[in-house]
């Protein structure tokens, strides 16, 4: 652990914020309080936290249908996020976007996205913009193993290397696209193997280990800012909940044993073990932190619950600038 304590604590906190927010959101959805589809990020926290700990609001990210985790890690406020999930007027998108389109331009978050694979080409645009404006920033595009089979990923990867754009292509390989295991959607095991075909480095990293994620991202960001072009970073991870919601449709597409094996490598648990070991944060302090954050999250829920629905008269607003 070469990272300083402040960074470690920062990463830790981002992970807990996600975990707590998502668990509460899942609970609310199953209680019928959140309309529509909700794709939860629990299990994958190390990826968002490890990377976002290094980004500023001027670094742009594109996200996926599983986007709350990214937004929280990028600084999203619980209240406005829950309000969006509830479809309230105080939500980040005034209730017009919901879970699948939650976004915040001020935080450099170019939206969750309901279309698998739609993010990478947009991130290419953001990275191009950074290069064009000659600012010292990066763009990061998150996408899943399933998304790596969309043509859009391919086009974006090629353009990013061609123009040597300051971009990180982060594949969160959680082993499934919806209910289809990776082996049934692609013949390769490592999505990172695709990097060579575009002329960029492909790195496989343990996506349950926030420090490993942090360090590989750090190198990729350095490379990007040095004008050497993009990196494909594949984070091997797992989602602890179902594709949609917590329990989802109850399909038997993966085994309990598999889930349990991965849960043993819970990114937060492992991280806290290390923090305690290294004397950075005692177990009790960690527990305390979980409680504090849970309270904040619950405040957020209250804010959202007490917020008004959008006025139907606003339906046709925001279509055009």
């Amino acid at each position, binding site marked *: 652990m070469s990272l300083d304590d402040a960074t470690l604590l920062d990463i830790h906190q981002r992970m807990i914020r996600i975990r707590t927010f998502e668990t509460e959101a899942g609970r609310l959805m199953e209680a019928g309080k959140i*309309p*529509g*589809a909700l794709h939860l990020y629990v299990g994958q926290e190390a990826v968002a936290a490890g990377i976002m700990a290094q980004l500023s609001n001027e670094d742009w990210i594109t996200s996926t249908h599983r986007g709350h985790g990214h937004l929280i890690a990028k600084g999203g406020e619980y209240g406005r996020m829950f309000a969006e999930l509830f*479809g*309230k007027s105080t939500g980040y*998108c005034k*209730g*017009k*976007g*919901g*879970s*699948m*389109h939650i976004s915040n331009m001020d935080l450099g978050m170019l939206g969750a*996205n*309901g*279309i*698998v*694979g739609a993010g990478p080409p947009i991130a290419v645009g953001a990275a191009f913009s950074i290069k064009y404006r000659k600012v010292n920033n990066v763009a990061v595009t998150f996408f899943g193993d*399933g*998304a790596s*089979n*969309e*043509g*859009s990923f391919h086009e974006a990867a090629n353009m990013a290397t061609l123009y040597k754009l300051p971009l990180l292509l982060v594949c969160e390989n959680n082993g499934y*696209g*919806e*209910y*289809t295991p990776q082996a*049934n*959607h*692609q013949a390769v095991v490592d999505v990172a193997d695709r990097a060579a075909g575009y002329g960029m480095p492909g790195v496989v990293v343990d996506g349950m280990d926030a420090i490993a994620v942090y360090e590989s991202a750090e190198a990729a960001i350095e490379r990007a800012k040095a004008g050497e072009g993009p990196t494909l970073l594949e984070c091997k991870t797992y989602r602890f909940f179902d594709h949609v919601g917590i329990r989802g*449709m109850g*399909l038997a*597409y993966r085994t309990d044993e598999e889930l349990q094996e991965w849960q043993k490598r819970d990114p937060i648990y492992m991280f806290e073990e290390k923090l305690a070991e290294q004397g950075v944060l005692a177990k009790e302090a960690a527990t305390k932190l979980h409680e504090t954050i849970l309270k904040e999250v619950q405040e957020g829920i209250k804010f959202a619950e007490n917020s008004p*629905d*959008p006025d*139907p008269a*606003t*339906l*046709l607003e925001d*279509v055009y600038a």
Partner: protein
Amino acid sequence: MANTEERTLTYVAAVAEAVEEVLNEQETAFVAGEDVAGAGGVFGSFRGILEKFGSDRVIDTPISEEGIIGLGVGSAATGLRPIVDIMFMDFMGECMDEIANQMAKMRYMFGGSAKLPITILTMSGAGMNMAAQHSQSLEVWLCHLPGLKVVAPSTPYDVKGLIIAASRDDNPVFVVLNKLSLRVSGPVPEGDYEIPIGKAEIVRSGSDVTVVTYSRMVSESLKAAEELAKNGIEAEVIDLRSLQPMDSDTVIESVSKTQRAVVVHEAVRFAGLGGEIASQIQERAFDYLDAPVARVGAPFSPVPFSPVLEQAYLPNAKKISAEVSALLG
């Protein structure tokens, strides 16, 4: 189960039953799409199909819509009869080239030498708080493309009969399903039957106004008609069933009788299929018309997420009856 007349199925179960009929009937038929095999379709449209027909004929694909349509085009041109699934109609944007430039045109460009018996299933419509990218009704994109056929069933009965008809057609046929109708039940005979592609159905007779519609808006129109009847207005409701080819004759005949028409669809009103229908009505029944042909469709915005906004957005029985009343008023 002997009395087939009374058996009911849900809209989604009718999809699965139709697919089963087709796979039983046609050896060269297979099903491909995202999560159609292992999961039986995310809407349940293919539940049990993998178990019955095995993984040679029921195929999970990668998330590669252009590849999926290409699989359909290439296998159909070379002798198979694919049924491919594009989970949400909104995802057509990912594969419009293979749809518009390959599937629709191959036969014509090849001077008639290729045959493309492809059935494409896809899910349209809003009302489930799925927001802007999972709620669209984009059928006009397809209807504008010579070479494609497009049907849009409103009931479980039509779902089964139209999918069977589509699968027996030697052309690409899009079966545009509606997700808010999935749990709706209705009578569905066992065994095979076809609903002819290109034939509309008068689902309610009336003398005062003709409501021309399709898909889920059929039930909303029928509800509106019941409301209107309370005020003594008798609406004739026509379910187009098939959008391309379109049974304009049935529509014109009705309007010649009622002398008034309202066209209803869930799709965005501007540049939607309603424009085609309304234009044809006034072209062919101008002298019968007592009032302009009215159109009900979604307003000019993406589909909002918020339930409150989505309800304000959606065409429904109330808006339809208001439009009819205004027309007759």
